[in-house]
C-alpha cells in the first residue's frame, strides 16, 4: 500500500512538471506582452505582468497593419472552413453510404494522398499560381484544400456510424433526389462531425505560414503568422509589440481549443488512432 502511494506521488509530480513545461511558454508570452519594448529583455527576466500593454498596442498597430492581417487570417480561415465542410461532407457521404464501383480503391487513393510530402509539388504549384494570376489573392490558400483528404476521411468515418440507412431509404421513398438526400438528411445529421472538421480546418488555416508567405507576400494582404514573422525579422523590431502581437494571435486559438479540446484531439488523431 505504501509503495503504491509513493508511486502515485511521483507519477503525479512528473505529470505536473511536464504540464508546467508545456504551459509555461504560453504564460510567458502573455507576461512579456505587458512589458514595454525597451524592458522586455531585462535581467533577470520577467515572470510577472508589467505595465506596458497600452504602449505595446500602439506600437504594434503602427508597425504592421495588425487588424487587417487579423481579418485576412479570419477571412481565409472562414472560407476554407465553410468550403471544406461542404465538399468533405459530400464526399464522406458518398464513401460512407453508397455502393459503387471502385469505391474501395478510390477511398484508398484519397487516404494515400495524405502521405505525399507537401514540398513535392511546391515549385510547379508556385509557377501555376503566377500563371493563373492568383498571387496576392486568397485562392492558393483556399482552393486546393477545399476537398481535403483528411476531411473526407473524417466525415466518412463519422457518417458510417451516425447515418442510419433507413432514414435514407425513407427519404428516397418520399421522392427526394440524391442531392436532396445530401442537403436535407446528410448535412443536418452530420452536424457534430462537421463541427469537429470545421474547428480543425479553422485551426489549420489560422496557423498556416508557408503558403501564406509564398503567395501573400504583400504585408497588407497577408495573414497574421506572416505579419508576425515580418515583425520578428525587422532590425528595429520592438520586442513588446512583437510579444503582444504573438499573444493576441494565440487568444482565439486557446479559447477554441480549451472549449472543445476533447473533440479536437479526437478528430485530429482519428486517423492515427484508427489504424
Amino acid at each position, binding site marked *: 500500500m505504501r509503495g503504491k502511494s509513493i508511486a*502515485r506521488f511521483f*507519477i503525479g509530480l*512528473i*505529470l505536473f512538471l511536464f*504540464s508546467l513545461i*508545456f504551459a509555461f*511558454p*504560453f504564460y*510567458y*508570452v502573455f507576461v512579456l506582452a505587458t512589458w514595454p519594448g525597451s524592458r522586455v*529583455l531585462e*535581467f*533577470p527576466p520577467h515572470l510577472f505582468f508589467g505595465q506596458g500593454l497600452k504602449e505595446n498596442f500602439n506600437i504594434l498597430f503602427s508597425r504592421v497593419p495588425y487588424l487587417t492581417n487579423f481579418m485576412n487570417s479570419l477571412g481565409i480561415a472562414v472560407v476554407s472552413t465553410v468550403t471544406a465542410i461542404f465538399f468533405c461532407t459530400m*464526399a464522406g*457521404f*458518398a*464513401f460512407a453510404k*453508397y455502393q*459503387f464501383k471502385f469505391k474501395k480503391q478510390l477511398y484508398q487513393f*484519397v487516404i494515400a*494522398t495524405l502521405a*505525399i*510530402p507537401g*514540398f*513535392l509539388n*511546391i*515549385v*510547379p*504549384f508556385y509557377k*501555376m499560381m503566377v500563371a493563373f494570376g492568383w498571387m496576392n489573392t486568397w485562392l492558393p490558400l483556399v*482552393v*486546393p484544400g*477545399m476537398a*481535403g*483528404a483528411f476531411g*473526407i476521411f473524417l466525415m466518412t468515418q463519422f457518417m458510417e456510424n451516425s447515418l442510419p440507412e433507413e432514414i435514407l431509404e425513407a427519404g*428516397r421513398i418520399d421522392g427526394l433526389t*440524391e*442531392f436532396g438526400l*445530401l442537403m436535407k438528411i446528410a448535412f443536418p445529421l452530420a452536424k457534430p462531425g462537421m463541427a469537429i472538421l470545421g474547428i480543425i480546418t479553422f485551426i489549420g488555416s489560422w*496557423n498556416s*505560414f*508557408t503558403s501564406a508567405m509564398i503567395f501573400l507576400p504583400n504585408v497588407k494582404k497577408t495573414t497574421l*503568422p506572416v505579419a*508576425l*514573422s515580418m515583425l*520578428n*525579422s525587422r532590425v528595429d523590431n520592438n*520586442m513588446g509589440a512583437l510579444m503582444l502581437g*504573438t499573444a493576441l*494571435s*494565440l487568444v482565439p*486559438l486557446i479559447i477554441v*481549443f*480549451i472549449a472543445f*479540446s476533447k473533440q*479536437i*484531439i479526437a478528430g485530429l*488523431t482519428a486517423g*492515427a488512432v484508427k489504424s
Partner: protein
Amino acid sequence: MKKLQTQSIAPYIFISPFFILFAVFGIFPIGYSIVMSFFNWKLTGPVGFIGFQNYINVLTVDPYFVKAIGNTVVLLITGSLLQHFIALPLAIMVNSKIVKQKEFFKTTYFLPYVTSTVAVVIIFSNLFDTNFGLINYVIELLGGKPYPWLAQSVGIKVALSTILNWKYVGWNMVIYIAGLQSIPVDLYEAADIDGAGTWKKHLAITLPQLTPIIFFAVTLSIIGGMQIFEEPFIMTGGYENLGGDQNSGLTAALYLMFTAFKAGRLGKASAIAWILFIVILFLNWINRIVTNKLAGKD
C-alpha cells in the same frame, strides 16, 4: 429505372471535387516537377534540357545539400524520434489507473501541437536569448555560464530539437494512450497472477502490443521530420542566413525552399524535392524493418 441511374451516378459526383482538385493541384504539378528536375529551369531566362545534371550536382558537388541532409538527420533523431521516448512513458503514466486528471493532462500536453509555429518560435527565441533569456538565467542561477544558443551551431540544434519535442510530444502521447486503451486488460491480469512487476509487464505486454502503433507514429514523425522548414526558417531569420552559424539550422526542406524561392533555381529545387522524397521512402522502409524486428516478426 431513371431513379436507379441517378443513384449510381450521384456518388461519383459527390466525390468528384477531391479528384478534380487533386488532378489540377496535385498530380499535375507533381508530374511537372519531374519534368522540371531535368531542366536548368530558372525564374527567368531560357530553359534547357540537362538530363540528370541537377541530380548529379546536388548529390556530388553541392556542399549545402550534404550539410542539409546531415542537419535533417540530426534533427530527425534529436527531435522527431526522441519525442517517442518521452511520449510513450507519459502516455503510460497518464493512462494509469492512479491518475485522476487525465483530460487536464491531455489538453495541456496537446496545446503546443495546435499552436502556430511562428508563435512558438518567437516565444522560444526569447527563452533562448543569450543575454536576457530565461534559460540562460536559470543556468546562471545554477552556477553555469550563459550560452549563446541561437548564435552557435550546437545551440541552434538544441533550440530546434527542443521546439520539436515540445510541440509534438503531446500529439504522440495521445496516439499512444489510444493504443494503450486497446490492449486487452486480461493480458495484464494474467501477468499479475504470474507475479510480474510493472517494468516486466510493460516490456512483455505493452511494447509488443503497441508495435503497430509505434510504427505508425514513427512513420508520421519521419515524414514530418524530413519536411521541417518553418521552425529553422523563422528561428534563423529567413533564407538569407542559410540556417545560421555553420548552416546548423539548414534543413533539407529549408534548402529546397531557398533553392527555389531565393536562388530562383526551380529545376534544381525540383530535383532536391525528388531526392528528399526517395529518402523518406527509404527511411520508412528501414522503420518497417526495425519495428518488425522489435515485434519478433521477420
